[in-house]
C-alpha cells in the first residue's frame, strides 16, 4: 500500500476565489480593527515589548503559592505595570515602560522595593533585569522595514527575470497579504512584539515566498507545454495547483508537526515565537493557493499576458504602418 494524498485532486480552487477574497478581507478587517482598538486602549497599534518601547523588564521568582493578583497588588493595584506568568509556576515578568525623565535603574529598584514591601510576598529572587533604550527599537524597526522593502524589490526583479513580471507582482501581493494577516493576529491577541516575534515574521515571509514559487513553477511549466498558452488560464492555474497539492500538504504538514512539537515541548521562552510560526505556515499555505494564484489570474485578466501585450503592440505597429502608406 502506498500513501499518496490528494493524488489527481481536482479541487476548483479558483472558482472559490471570490469566497477567499471575502474571507481574507474579513480577517484583514478584524486585524485592522484590532490594531485601531489597540491604539485607543493601549496607546499603540501593537503590544510592543521593551525591545521596542524601551523600559525595564524584570523577571522575578516568587515563593510558591503567590498569585499574579497578589503581585499586581504589590505593584500598585490598578496602576501596576503589565505582569505575566512566565515559564515555571512561580516566575513572573514585570514590564515597566520607559518613564520620561526617570532612569531605568530607578524604575527597577522601585519595583524591587515594592515587592519587598508587600506582606503577601516573602522571599523573592530577581532572575533577570533588562534596561532597554527606546531609540534602538525605533531604529531597528526602520531598518527591518527597509530591509523587507528592498528584499521585495529584489524578489520582484528576480521573478520578473525568471518568470514574468506578473508572477513577481502576484507573489509580493501574497507575501504582503501574509504579513498583514499575521500583524492583525498579533494585534488581536496582543502578542508581545519582541525580537523573536520579528524573526518569526521574517520566517513567514520566507515560507510564504517558497510556497508561492512552487505553485508558480508548476504554472510556468504548464504554460510552456505545448498548447499551454492557448489553454484557459483559469483551468491551467487550477490544474497546476492541484498537481502540486500533494507536495503542498505534505510539506506544510511536516513543518506543522515540527512546530507543534516545539509549541508543546519547547517551553515558555519560545511559545509566542512558535505560535507566530504556526500561524505563518497556515497563512502561507493558504495564500499560495487562494491569494497568489488568483492574483496572477486577476493581473492577467486586467492587463493581459506578455504575449497578448506583444501581439497588441505588433497589431498597433501594423496599423500605424497601414496608416502611413496612403500618405
Amino acid at each position, binding site marked *: 500500500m*502506498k*500513501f499518496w494524498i490528494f493524488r489527481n485532486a481536482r479541487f476548483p480552487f479558483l472558482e472559490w476565489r471570490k469566497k477567499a477574497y471575502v474571507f481574507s478581507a474579513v480577517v484583514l478587517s478584524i486585524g485592522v480593527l484590532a490594531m485601531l482598538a489597540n491604539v485607543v486602549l493601549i496607546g499603540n497599534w501593537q503590544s510592543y515589548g521593551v525591545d521596542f518601547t524601551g523600559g525595564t523588564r524584570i*523577571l522575578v521568582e516568587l515563593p510558591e503559592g503567590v498569585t499574579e493578583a497578589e503581585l499586581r497588588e504589590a505593584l500598585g493595584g490598578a496602576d501596576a505595570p503589565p505582569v505575566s506568568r512566565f*515559564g515555571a509556576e512561580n516566575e513572573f515578568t514585570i514590564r515597566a515602560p520607559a518613564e520620561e525623565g526617570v532612569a531605568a535603574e530607578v524604575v527597577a529598584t522601585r519595583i524591587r522595593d515594592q515587592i519587598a514591601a508587600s506582606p503577601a510576598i516573602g522571599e523573592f529572587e530577581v*532572575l*533577570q*533585569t*533588562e*534596561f*532597554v*533604550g527606546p531609540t*534602538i527599537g525605533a531604529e*531597528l524597526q526602520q*531598518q*527591518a522595514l*527597509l*530591509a523587507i522593502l*528592498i*528584499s521585495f524589490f*529584489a*524578489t520582484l526583479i*528576480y*521573478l520578473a527575470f*525568471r*518568470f514574468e513580471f506578473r508572477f513577481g507582482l502576484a507573489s509580493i501581493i501574497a507575501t504582503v497579504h501574509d504579513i498583514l494577516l499575521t500583524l492583525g493576529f498579533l494585534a488581536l491577541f496582543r502578542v508581545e512584539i519582541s*525580537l*523573536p516575534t*520579528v*524573526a518569526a515574521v*521574517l*520566517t513567514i*515571509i*520566507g*515560507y510564504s*515566498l*517558497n510556497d508561492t*514559487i*512552487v505553485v508558480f*513553477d*508548476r504554472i510556468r*511549466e504548464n504554460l510552456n507545454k505545448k498548447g499551454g498558452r492557448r489553454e484557459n488560464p483559469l483551468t491551467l492555474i487550477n490544474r497546476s495547483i492541484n498537481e502540486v497539492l*500533494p*507536495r503542498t500538504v*505534505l*510539506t506544510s*504538514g*511536516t*513543518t506543522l*508537526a*515540527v*512546530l507543534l*512539537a*516545539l509549541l508543546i*515541548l*519547547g*517551553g515558555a*521562552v*519560545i511559545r509566542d*515565537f512558535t505560535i507566530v*510560526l504556526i500561524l505563518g505556515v497556515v497563512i502561507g499555505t493558504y495564500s499560495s493557493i487562494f491569494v497568489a494564484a488568483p492574483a496572477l489570474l486577476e493581473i492577467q485578466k486586467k492587463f493581459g499576458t506578455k504575449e497578448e501585450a506583444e501581439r497588441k503592440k505588433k497589431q498597433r505597429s501594423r496599423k500605424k504602418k497601414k496608416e502611413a502608406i496612403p500618405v
Partner: protein
Amino acid sequence: MFSSIRVRIILILAVIGFSGWYLYSNYQQSGSIVKLGLDLQGGMHLVLEVDDPEGLMSLEARSDAIDRSERIIRNRIDELGVEEPIVQKVGQDRLIVELAGVDDEERARELVGQTAMLEWKLVRSVSQVQAALPRIDRAIVATLGADSLRAIGRDIEVSPEESDEVADLLFRTDPDQDPADPEEDPEEAVVDEEAEAALQELEAEADLAAEELALRPFTSLLLTSEGDGEFLLLNEDFALARSFLAMPEVQAVLPREISLQFHWEPVAIGGRLYRALYVLERNPFITGEMLEDASATRDQQFNQAIVQFQLSRAGGRLFGDVTGRHIGDRIAIVLDNEVVSAPVVRSRIGARGQIELGQQDMEEARDLALVLRAGALPAPLRIMEERTVGPSLGQDSIDQGMRAGLIGLVLIVLIMIAYYRFTGVLAVLALSVYVMLVLGGLAALNATLTLPGIAGLILSIGMAVDANVLIFERIREELAEGRAVRTAVDEGFGHALSAIVDANITTLITALILFQFGTGPVRGFAVTLSIGIIASFFTALYVTRSLYLVYLRGKKAQDTLSI
C-alpha cells in the same frame, strides 16, 4: 566531472569531513560545537553610544569616537577573562559588547563604561626605586604572612616534604582572582600550574637560593633590562607581580613621587614572552585632554612607522618645556594605567610631535595613534542598553528547546519514511548530511546561534524537506505516467530543479538583504538561513541524487522503486 558515482561519494564525504572537523575543533576550543548567543547562554549585553545629548557632534565625529574606543574596550575586557567577548561596531555610531557567562557585572559595567585615561609621564631611573625594593618584599611578607600560615594546611599536598617553602608559593595567588584584592578569601588561593613549575625550578636550585627567594617574593621576579627605567619580568609572572603591586601596603612603601607601571602588552625576546615594568614619575605632566589629534604615517626616507600627534596650545607649551629639559630621557605614554609606549626624547617638542617606532610594522603605529586619539576622546561613551540574562534561565530554555527540536526531527524522519518508504530513508540520510553541513557551516563561520537564528534554521529545515518532497512527488508522477524507474528518477530531478532553484534563490536573496541591512537579531536570522539554504540546496540536489544513483546501480530497468 562531478557526476560519476565515485567522485560524488568522495565529494560528499569530504564535505562531511570538513564539517566534522570544524565542529570538533570548536568543541576542543570552547566545549560546545556551536557558539551560543547571549539569549541561549546567559551573560551581559551592552550597547554603547557616544554621550552627546545635545547632538553637537557630526555623525563622522561619533563614528570616529567609536572606532577609537573599540580597541580600548576590547583591551579592558580581556582583564575580565571572558571567553570570546564580542566587541562590535554596529551602524555608524554604536558599539555592542557581549560578554557571555560573565559573573561580575558591576566590574564589567565599570570597565566598559569608564573613559580612557591617557597620561604622559617621565620615565625615571631604576636606581630611584632600588632602595625601596627590599621594603616592598618585606611589606608583602608582612601582609600575607598570617594568611599563608593558615593556608599551609590546605596546600600541603603540593609540596608535602617542604612545607616551609610553601609560604613562598602562597604569594603566587591565582591570577584569575581579582588581583586588586588578593586578601579576599585566601582559602581559595590555589597554587596554579606556573607556580608549580616555578617550584620545581626552585627545588632544583640550591637551598640557599630558595631560602633567599622566600624572603624576596617580588624582587625575585624582576630581571634587569637593557633600557634604564624599566625592569623585565617573565610574562607568566605578570599576574602575580601585578597583584603584589596592587596591594595598598606595597603602594605605601613606594617613594612618593614614583609609580611602577606595566607595559600593556607582552614582548617576545628570544622565544620567551616578557613584560616590561616601568619606573615612572607618579604625576603625569600632561594628560589626554591636551591632545588634539594623532595619526600614523610612514617615513619614506627611513622606512619607519611614525605616529604624529598634535597638542593644544597650552599642552604644546607644557610639552615643549618638559621635553626641552629632558632630551635623551624617555617619556611613557600611559593609557588606563598601562604603558603603551615609552619613546626617547630626541629634541624639544612643541605642539606638534612625532613618535618613531623604528622598523616596526604600520599596524603598531596605527594602534598607538588610535590609543592616543581614544585618550583624547572629547565625549565619553554612555551605556545605552544593558541586559543581563540569567544563565540558568538560558540553560532551561536550551534544554527544553533542544528536546522539542529533537522530537521535531524524529517526527520528520517518521513522516518521510512512512510516506516514501525506502526513498524516505534516502531522504533521511540526506537530511542528516544537511544537519551536519549546517552545524559545520555555523562552526566554520564562527557564527553565534541565537533564538532568531534558530528561526532561520527551522525555515531552512522546512525548505530542505520541501526540496526532497518536490523531487519525490515528481518521480511518483513520472512513474505514474508509466516511465521506467531510471528515466522517472532523472526526469523527477530534472523537473523539480527549477522550483527548488527559484525558491532557494529567492529566499537567499531575502536572507542576504536582511543580513546587509539588518542588525543584531535580524542578522543572526539571516546568517543561519543563508547557511541553511546553501546546505539544503547541496543535499537535495546532490546528496539525494547520489544516494539514488548508488541505489539504482544494480537495478534493471523493469524493477520497481520503493517510493
